[in-house]
């Protein structure tokens, strides 16, 4: 095989190659120049990005836990005998001393209730305790018709620490018995629970509640005290106001831990709720009358001896 023509050369001769040019940028970089440029660049970025960061975000006051718990009780000396009131106070104070807690036991008349029912004063007392002890971890409101029966039980380690409370919480359960369509939150962690309550037969037990100190506690107590709630004539005053708030406002419902009643509020009357049994933490004479056969005074006599011996023994 042969070719008629010799192989052709490309008609596109390669262009002359450029000599290495002497651009100033190609010279060996000087360390100082590089540093200056780099610094200017970083400083520019810093200046630009500085605008975005405003003041520090808001943080609510973090209570240090001194005291860990404040026990709040509102007493009404105008209604009940002095010995009864005294035993109530002693009961709280002795218990608090044992565990390093504080008590806040004002009289009903300490607060200006205008014309509303006296039971509203309990919320004022709670709010007052938050003011007086800004570093407490918890407020325990325990009404005046109750005794602490078991002095050995510590609130912080036996009830309110996150593990114990997490195990006790009743989740996804109608918040107001018997069949409210509003149920307690199923995914609430015990550390996020800010209000610990229990239920009796009729509804939430507002006579023995635990409130975790913080902005939310102030929010709850102040809202609870809303003058328009007070003037609404709820049949059971503050108790129904709480039930109302819990059922209408998710910001409140979502912070509530529901626990079994006998842990914090055993009743003497089985018809109203879980009945007190020997060894329970608290006994409540809920439903006791001012005077008569089943007055708070006479009913409390049955238990006064018990707690006094128990407190002395421990």
């Amino acid at each position, binding site marked *: 095989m042969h070719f008629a023509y010799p192989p052709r050369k490309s008609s596109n001769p390669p262009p002359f190659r450029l*000599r290495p*040019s002497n651009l100033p940028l190609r010279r060996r970089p000087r360390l100082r120049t590089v540093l200056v440029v780099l610094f200017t660049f970083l400083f520019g970025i810093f200046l630009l*990005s500085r*605008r975005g960061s405003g003041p520090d975000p808001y943080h609510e006051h973090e209570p240090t836990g001194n005291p860990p718990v404040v026990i709040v009780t509102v007493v009404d000396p105008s209604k009940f005998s002095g010995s009864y009131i005294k035993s109530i106070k002693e009961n709280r104070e002795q218990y608090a001393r044992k565990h390093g807690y504080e008590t806040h036991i004002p009289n009903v008349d300490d607060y200006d209730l205008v014309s509303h029912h006296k039971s509203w004063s309990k919320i004022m007392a709670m709010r007052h305790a938050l003011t007086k002890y800004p570093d407490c971890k918890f407020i325990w409101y325990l009404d005046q018709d109750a005794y602490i029966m078991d002095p050995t039980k510590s609130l912080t380690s036996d009830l309110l620490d996150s593990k114990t409370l997490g195990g006790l919480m009743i989740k996804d359960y109608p918040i107001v018995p018997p069949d409210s369509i509003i149920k307690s939150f199923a995914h609430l962690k015990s550390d996020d629970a800010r209000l610990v309550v229990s239920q009796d037969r009729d509804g939430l037990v507002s006579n023995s509640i635990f409130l975790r100190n913080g*902005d939310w506690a102030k929010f709850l107590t102040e809202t609870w005290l809303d003058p328009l*709630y007070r003037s609404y004539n709820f049949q059971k005053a503050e108790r129904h106001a709480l039930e109302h708030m819990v059922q209408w406002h998710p910001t*409140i419902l979502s912070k509530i831990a529901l626990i079994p009643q006998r842990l914090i509020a055993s009743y003497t009357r089985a018809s109203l709720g879980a009945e007190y049994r020997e060894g329970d933490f608290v006994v409540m004479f809920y439903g006791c009358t001012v005077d008569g056969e089943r007055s708070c005074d006479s009913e409390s006599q049955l238990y006064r001896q018990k707690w006094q011996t128990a407190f002395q023994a421990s």
Partner: protein
Amino acid sequence: MSLSRSPSPVPGGGWTSPGLNHHSGRTSPVNLSGGPVAWDSAKMRNHNINGYPSFAPQQKTGFFARHMRRLSSNLPRFANSSSPYGHKGKQARGPWYGPNGSLAQRIRSLFGRMGRKLKMRLLVASIVLFCIIIFFNSPLITYWRRASWGYGGEKFVIILGANVGGGVMDWKGAREWAIERDSVRNKKRYAAKWGYELEIVDMSTKKRYAHEWRESWEKVDYVRKTMRKYPNAEWFWWLDLNTYVMEPSYPLQRHLFDDLNKHVYRDINEYNPLNITHPLTEIYLDDEAQSPIGDNKANSLNLLLTQDCSGFNLGSFFMRRSAWTERILDMWWDPVLYEQKHMEWEHKEQDALEQMYTSLPWVRQHTGFLPQRKINSFPPAACDDGTGKVSTRHHYNGDERDFLVNMAGCEWGRDCWGEMYHYREFSYWLNRNPWERFKEDLVAEIWFKITGKRVKL
């Protein structure tokens, strides 16, 4: 280059068979470099299947197109590429490629012939130009304004309540549409300029609200919904439809949020048309709740609003995302409160907020008031005390370049569209660019002085 095809004739170039003509003995630079270009164009045209024979004369139009080749070949050229000035020292510079070298080659050779000083100057000039383009003519400035590490625009969401009263209940007329169009466009531009988010919500009377207690309480619901929709945003700015941003060049950051404490007053006694008792004095409250100014820190402000002559005004207010805001949005509507008060609460949310502010200490501690003209100036027709005087507290002042006009209450007996149109045009006029100012303030004025006639340029 493949030579499997016979080359085609090229206008002006003659028969440029590449296999033959490099032996032709011609040394003119025209031919030396012209060869491959002609070959390229021939190839191009062969690929161009356009129905014409490939040797059809090209239709060139125009004098320069037709005579370019003749003109350029008559120009002097420096074929001796190595040293245009005859200096030996300039050997390092790039070769001369002639007019037919590739663009890159030509630029390179041009660059090679420049002095170092000129190069540096050019470099500086191009950097400046580059920066100007980047910062003012590219999406980069928008990106920076939006970014949370930059100017932080994405932290702001404007919620505009549109379509008021429209929908099922009411047909909207041309004026209503025009108001809506102008208002929405105004906010859209403002939001786009500073990188804010704009959420237009439909305030039309819906069945969900019309037959319920909660009629026209949507504001609260929409703020909450928008907070869920923009999880990265911090401040939410509610605007009624009848508002107009008069100064789009004010960013919210500089206008308010960079130095919030300077603008906000917390002690309502400074201006208190509702005569709210402040501060609270209940003994059970802590010092902060009893203080007239709360903790007086800018970061604890979660609600910013203004007061007009008759109390709180929710035509333009800010809410910050926070646990507090969730609570107040949740408490805002409560059946027990509503049941007792709905006959008195003419302005629904506004009255409910006043009620909350009055009775709840936790609300007071995180609420701040802005001077009304900061974010919510009224036209003179609103808040009119009967004397027709312009109030320095409530009414829009063009000389001081107030930020926003809220034509509050214009739907009751006033001309909403007229006011909107007036303020729109006034805002345009205030924010003319320098060229317009030159034309209208100088040229037209001079013209007026000379001829005595007004002209529109």
